[in-house]
């Protein structure tokens, strides 16, 4: 849309047909812009109110002495870097970061591999594949806390089903949740179990999108199943894989309810994550300033990955995928 230029030499103010056209076009544009903003406004206000404001507030809070008193008096004196120093100087914070990363990496690896394997398995239609797939979705339907409570019983050292099962093969009872060296692994295993359905469903959907002809062509070119999987399935699945991994990352890194119900962060802090740490600081010790510090670190880590995700996506778009 281009605005017609009024020819030189026309008297200003005179309503030449050109001017009328231009003015009405301008008016139309302003009005359209106003409407655009009016329709964007609710979403924008929502974003600012429910995401921007808490985010900024959380950052500010991490520099304040924010205690129960603040709620009564509204006063939260600034203390500079005191909160950051206290949190970063605590050995538990370093442990929690490592444990969070281990937990996230382990969970994603397990969920994704098993989810992908199951998705590929079910993409070959066979009898009863539908019902079995439906049953595999069950972990997703069970509330996280319920799963954790059930797994706590399954993994009980003395009477748990898991150890009874292992003893059939002559294995000693494993202190799944009672030993600091095993507890994090147990939490990862439970989280893998919870996350498999999500990965499977999304990847299965992605697999359905891959045109059959590609596989047929690969087969004609003499590609075996493994080669076809590596050179056809995986590249075609790439956008879906990034979505699954990024969403999985976001929901895993902030884990709280699973850990609280499964081990409460113990034994001996071996399953403390950034999520449980911020919960403990903010809601048990009621030191909201220090809790905000850990929350900010969590947001920062998530933000880094969100940006990575956007970049990868843009690169994909650039290639026309």
């Amino acid at each position, binding site marked *: *849309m281009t605005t017609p230029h009024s020819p030189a030499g026309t008297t200003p103010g005179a309503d030449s047909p050109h001017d009328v056209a231009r003015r009405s076009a301008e008016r139309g544009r302003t*009005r*359209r812009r106003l*409407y*655009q903003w*009016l*329709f964007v*406004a*609710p979403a924008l*206000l*929502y974003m600012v*109110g429910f995401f921007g404001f808490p985010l900024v507030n959380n950052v500010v809070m991490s520099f304040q002495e924010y*205690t*129960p*008193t603040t*709620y*009564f*008096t*509204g006063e939260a004196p600034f203390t500079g870097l005191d909160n950051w120093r*206290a949190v970063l*100087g*605590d050995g538990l914070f370093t442990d929690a970061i490592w444990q969070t990363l281990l937990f996230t990496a382990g969970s994603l690896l397990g969920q994704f591999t098993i989810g992908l394997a199951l998705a590929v398995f079910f993409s070959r239609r066979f009898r009863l594949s539908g019902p079995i797939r439906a049953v595999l979705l069950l972990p997703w339907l069970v509330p996280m806390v319920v799963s954790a409570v059930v797994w*706590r019983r399954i993994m*009980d*050292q*003395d*009477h748990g089903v898991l150890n009874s099962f292992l003893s059939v093969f002559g294995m000693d009872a494993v*202190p799944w*949740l*009672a*030993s*600091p060296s095993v507890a994090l692994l147990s939490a990862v295993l439970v989280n893998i179990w919870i996350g498999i359905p999500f990965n499977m469903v999304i990847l299965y959907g992605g697999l359905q999108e891959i045109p059959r002809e590609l596989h047929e062509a690969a087969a004609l070119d003499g590609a075996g199943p493994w080669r076809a999987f590596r050179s056809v399935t995986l590249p075609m699945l790439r956008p879906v894989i990034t979505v699954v991994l990024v969403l999985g990352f976001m929901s895993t890194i902030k884990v709280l309810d699973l850990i609280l119900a499964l*081990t*409460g*962060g*113990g*034994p*001996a*802090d071996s399953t403390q994550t950034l999520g449980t740490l911020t919960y*403990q600081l903010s*809601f*048990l*010790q*009621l030191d909201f300033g220090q809790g905000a510090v850990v929350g900010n670190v969590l947001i920062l880590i998530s933000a880094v990955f969100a940006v990575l995700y956007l970049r990868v996506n843009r690169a994909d778009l650039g290639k026309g995928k």
Partner: protein
Amino acid sequence: MRRPTRGTPPRSVALPLAAVMAAAGLAGCARQPDPGTVTVLNSATNTAEHEANQDHFDRCAEPLGLRVDQISVPADQVATKALRMASSDSLPDILELDGSELPQFAETGGLLPITSAGVDTSVLSDSAVSLGSHDGAQYGVARSVNSLALIYNAELLAEAGLEPPATWEELRASAAELTGGDTYGMAFSASPNADGVYQFLPFFWSAGGDETALDDGAGDAALQLWKDLVDDGSASRSVVNWNQQDVNDQFISGRAAMMINGPWQVPVLDGQDDVEWAVASIPVPEAGQDPVPPIGGTVMTVPAGGDEEREQNAGAILNCLNSEENQLAWGERVNNVPTREDAAAAYREQNPKLAPFADLVATARSRTAEVGTGWPVVADAMSGAFQSVLTGRTTPGDALERAQRQTRTGE
């Protein structure tokens, strides 16, 4: 290039639509409290508990021409809910907090010293006064309190020809003797949260431990006792995962001959026929010593800054709830010990099975009496200590030294 002309709907629709969407965000208004109604925030989310509370409130409010409205949220959310209410100036007239949370609130200046609301505290036992006090002033009244005791499987002990152990030495020996097959001699909670800390305190304090100086050496013996029970095989290694509910489950399924637990388990214990249970005092390090268990329970407080008439109404209801008759009825309903000495004596007489609790409460201590608002940090350090000792990561002495350092940096 042809652009699709979509977007601008007629102005008559667009403007009101946008206005409505913007206005929706501004909706919401403050509730004006009715002068004849007293509001209460508590944790009685369970229907039976809620109704029992309402019944007691009504009993007291009706003669005064008042009505009581309860707002109940889960116990672990009462404090945060109250803080949110404080920031919007909508605190209830009576705020029922867990005793261990009281200092955090009293410290803010947001609670009224309870005598200013006209509440008579002279009739309460010393331990009940300490549960509701912070920095020398009393802010909360407990109608009844709980503590911990040794609950044992009477049948198993009789079979083994044992009396309930009175000292640590006897506890260790009896627990070992009662262990066999699927049954552990002893069960307790050493979970890394409030449950585990609550259970550790009777041992820590009875040994002479001091929460302001965790590393003074006195508490080491308590950690060692727990460690010994687990190392002997008399208690499961899973104690580090068990909360108090799990401990009770182990006991009623016959997998533990003795356990440490509180009177809130009585309804569950009464509701089953498999295990014959009885209550004994908490074992002490040496014969003849007084056990020092923690005192627990909720306290009712009156938030400050409200209208004086409302505060007096709240105080009048509190006074009535704490009459001898009402305390006794309430104590029996929730299996807790009344805090008035006269009511406690009557309770003891009427409930011989739970009498050890009544005795234990008399020597019990409040968790926050010494450290006040520092309690959450101390509790966290303590749980770190027993968890690392029980999982074999460190020795009792080192664990408590580390815990003490932790409480110092937490200040």
